[in-house]
């Protein structure tokens, strides 16, 4: 895996709904409106996981979606980050023991950043992306320190 300093400045996000109630999805869209304007950080919503650097996953994972989540994760080219948006995806929320859920997102795919909230505020999503940014930056520093690994 390679990383360079331009990577964090141009994070293209793919929005993946794994069974969300659409509340968090609307807040993600709100982040792209002129009021919050995520594009000023180089963040762009793309339509295909092949173009994405970051997966924004909303909602708890239903049985039907589990396979799809894995496939979308595998289709996203490396290096990539996963951000879970909303309480449901983080822990299952009020649906934690529901019969039709497989569980929170981190039981299916590795997750880098959790953004709790029901629904999350756009500010929280921006902060979440910033956390992913910092995480990638630290990863790059550590890779620079140990280039053989």
């Amino acid at each position, binding site marked *: 895996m390679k990383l360079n300093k331009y990577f964090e400045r141009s994070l293209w996000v793919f929005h993946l709904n794994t069974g969300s109630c659409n509340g968090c999805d609307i807040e993600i869209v709100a982040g792209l409106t002129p009021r919050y304007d995520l594009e000023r950080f180089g963040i762009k919503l793309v339509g295909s996981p092949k173009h994405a650097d970051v997966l924004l996953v909303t909602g708890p994972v239903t049985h039907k979606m589990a396979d799809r989540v894995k496939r979308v994760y595998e289709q996203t*080219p490396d290096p990539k980050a996963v951000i879970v948006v909303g309480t449901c995806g983080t822990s299952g929320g009020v649906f934690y023991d529901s019969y039709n859920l497989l569980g929170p997102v981190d039981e299916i795919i590795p997750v880098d950043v959790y953004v709790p909230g029901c629904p999350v505020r756009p500010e929280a999503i921006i902060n979440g992306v910033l956390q992913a940014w910092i995480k990638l930056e630290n990863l790059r520093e550590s890779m620079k320190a140990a280039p053989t690994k």
Partner: protein
Amino acid sequence: MTIEGLLIILLKIIGAVIIAFLGVILGLFYKGIDRKLAAKMQARVGPPIRQPFMDFFKLMIKENIVPENAVPWIFNGVPVMTLVATITILFYLPIGNISPLLSGYGDIVLIIYLLTLPAIGMVVGGFASGSPYANVGAQREMVMMMSYELPLVTTVIAIGWKLSQVYPQLNVFSLAVINAHPIWGLVGPLGFVGALLLLITLAIVTPGELSKIPFDVPEAETELAGGLLVEYSGRNLALFSLADAVKTIVMVSLTVALFFPYNIAHLFDLSGIFAIGIDSLFFLVKLLLIMFVEVTFIRVAAARLKIDQVSYAYWVPLSIIGLLGLSLIVLDTIMI
């Protein structure tokens, strides 16, 4: 072959490398300006102007995924072909008062043929990726190509025909000749209106040629998830984004060459290197202004059309406007 001949070939090669390099940098820079302007028009802050460069460098380090049911050599070869075809057009376009690098080896008819190459490349790449989304996108791109060709050719033919009437001894389709004799100075009042209509035609063909909103049906982010480019990632996507940036420069330069080939160096009594410098700067300003009108403004002001609406818009109203412009120029010439 003499030493002189070899030297000229060497100079052309060096020139080609310089133009390819500058074309790519300029393309990405103008793409950044385009995104910033679009953001300002939507009351946003917008990305920094160097954003396309960062996007490009990021895409270059990403993993390059080739889908299982794609044809790998076509899938990986097409982005390179698209970029090379686009950059080749730059060699035939005049920049400021510098005549085209390959002037004498090809004219505007060749440019029109070369302009279809990137589109064909994308169509082939779309079909080769083996995804239903890319397949639909490729079919739409083919329909688009068939639609915008007639208005584009009408514009070029009208200007060439007018030049052939005024200067029968010249090679009228050569861009150097078109560049030296602006259409506005050759026509009367009726022909002026005709030329204005042709300018409108070309201005509306440009976003179609570049697959920009309102004519971005082949890529259609919201319904086709990226359309033609849906399976492309990493280096291939970076090359496609470069080709798109260079093609913007090409199409806008074509408008400049056909309709606004004016230079300002003679106004300041400059000559030699200063004249080339100031004319090149003026050329960049013209590019910026025309890109703002043809790409950014239309992109922000309009929503995407459906594919049948795009086809209709090009075949019926725009073709009529173009042919009207052509006939006004003909009428103007006959009546004099």
